[in-house]
């Protein structure tokens, strides 16, 4: 009777350990910075002045009226920054979502189905991978005169999903031949259920890291494109702000309040996402996790003790 009780208790234990990353300093810093910037992009535009309003106070340094000063044509830099944050985040979000869908479809579904479908998807992925993204984006932008933010995001996503699809395909291939997947196939689970319930949860950390990477790539790519004057027309992003700052000779005139904020936002957001990605990497590859300096401190061994321990084992 007691034995039966233990069995029921064991069954009651949740089957899957949640794959949330441990809250390390790196992850917390990344999440806080990214969260603050996202919040600024969401709420900021509601609170600031009209970003396009032209005034006769060109290139004034920060003051009480204009907290981050004005541009060459007297537009408020803080207001532009708020709208630009929103614009850049929209590009990042759209590209992240599209990368998730495209790379998931071509990477996971193809590798799981196997056979000619896998061959075809893999060939398609590799062909897209070797077609260079930025020049194609530039040429496409050159052909289309009126570019919306969504079009720019779409073009960036189409040229950038292939790398993620290749990474996902590799992992799916390794997962689908694991014993537990074979076992559930023998047990008569349906194919789509094996894919969604058995394989997909193990790919979530990898998917997350690929999406974060795609978002960084998209925001930097959009900035580069805008800097060349080929970004979205009629909308604010960090890239277009830098483009106008560059054209307005902000650098030569020493108008740091104009070109430093957008660049700094880009750098901070990129760094925050990188920090988040480091933490996800440590879930995917546990070997990266151990034996950092912090972990060693956790063992409460002094350097001397470690040396002595090493000597005695050698």
């Amino acid at each position, binding site marked *: 009777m007691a034995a039966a009780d233990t069995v029921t208790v064991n069954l009651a234990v949740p089957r899957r350990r949640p794959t949330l990353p441990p809250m390390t300093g790196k992850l917390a810093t990344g999440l806080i910075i990214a969260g603050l910037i996202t919040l600024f992009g969401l709420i900021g535009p509601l609170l600031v002045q009209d970003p396009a309003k032209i005034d006769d106070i060109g290139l004034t340094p920060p003051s009480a009226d204009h907290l981050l000063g004005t541009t060459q044509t007297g537009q408020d830099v803080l207001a532009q920054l708020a709208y630009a944050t929103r614009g850049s985040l929209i590009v990042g979000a759209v590209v992240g979502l599209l990368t998730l869908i495209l790379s998931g479809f071509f990477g996971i579904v193809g590798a799981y189905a196997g056979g000619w479908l896998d061959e075809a998807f893999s060939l398609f992925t590799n*062909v897209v991978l070797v077609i260079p993204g930025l020049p194609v984006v530039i*040429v496409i932008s050159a052909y289309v005169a009126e570019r919306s933010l969504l079009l720019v995001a779409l073009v960036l996503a189409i040229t950038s999903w292939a790398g993620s699809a290749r990474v996902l395909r590799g992992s799916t291939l390794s997962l689908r031949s694991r014993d537990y997947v074979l076992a559930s196939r023998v047990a008569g689970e349906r194919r789509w259920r094996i894919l969604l319930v058995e394989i997909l949860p193990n790919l979530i950390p990898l998917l997350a890291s690929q999406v974060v990477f795609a978002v960084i790539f998209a925001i930097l790519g959009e900035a580069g494109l805008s800097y060349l004057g080929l970004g979205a027309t009629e909308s604010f992003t960090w890239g277009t702000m830098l483009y106008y700052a560059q054209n307005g000779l902000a650098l030569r005139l020493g108008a740091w309040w104009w070109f430093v904020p957008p660049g700094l936002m880009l750098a901070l957001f990129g760094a925050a996402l990188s920090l988040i990605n480091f933490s996800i990497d440590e879930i995917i590859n546990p070997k*990266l996790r151990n034996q950092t300096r912090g972990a060693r401190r956790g063992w409460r061994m002094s350097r001397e003790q470690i040396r002595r321990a090493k000597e005695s084992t050698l």
Partner: protein
Amino acid sequence: MRYLSRKLGFYLVALWAALTLNFLIPRMMPGDPVEIMLAKLGQKGPVTPESREAIEAMLGTDSSRPLWAQYGDYLAGLANGDLGVSLVFFPAPVSSIIAQTLPWTIGLIGLATIISFLTGVGLGTLAGWKRGSWMDNLIPVTTMFQSVPYFWLALILLFLLGSVWPVFPLNGGYDVYNVTPGWNGPFLASVVYYGTLPALTIILSSIGGWMLGMRNMMVSTLSDDYMVTAEAKGLRSRRIMMRYAARNAVLPSISGFAISLGFVVAGSIITEAVFSYPGIGSALLQAVGGNDYALMQGILLIITLSVLGANLLVDLLYSVIDPRIRARG
């Protein structure tokens, strides 16, 4: 041998796809190049039907012929090395402009990529070997440089080292006033001097990726069983680090290096825009600015070819340095 033929087959398919894409993009896009040029001409004066025909003939887009016939002409032109005539640099053919600008790009970006790869992998090896040391803590700093948008970093360095402390020239590929291009000492010295700052910005912004990748692979490799065996055999730690750990850990970095070598031509666009460097990226931007569709297509073709070529080279090299690949097929 099967490996080789599979790879070659893939690259043929990729090449065909790239060529077709190159053909289709101008014809699929909402803005018709002929219309755009006619509109520009129309602002200056009335446009005759003859000039429309002339422009169509120049761009090779005779709209009265079916698409597949245009496609045939396009492929035949490529096979003869005929890329059309540039508009921005009229009447120079596209191929001669590419021949002029390509060496600049390959010299600057290629060298910078190689330096960045070697330094990054070396530092990454040390960081992975001495995990948790000060060098390991350097990695987040270099990743910071990577998340800074490249052109912003380049602009600020240009401002600091070009305007505030004029150590380096502000733009250009060489001193146009005092030296004559050719294989002579002053010209080469001038090229190196003008190229240092652009190269430095490329190295700064890309070294973090190499370091991080190599460091993570070192860490993974170090926990493998053969590392314990090597240590048990009493080998020198230097030998363990270089021959046992780094030799195996460097493989993914090498394939990454191949890909980035292929993107040398493609990745140069922003660098060349910031420094007004006379390379292929500047030519592409001029083509975009002047609606020069023949030049745009030609440069896109060269970029795609270089990416494909570099990837093929590395696939072949990879089967030499990592014999497991050949066995797997």
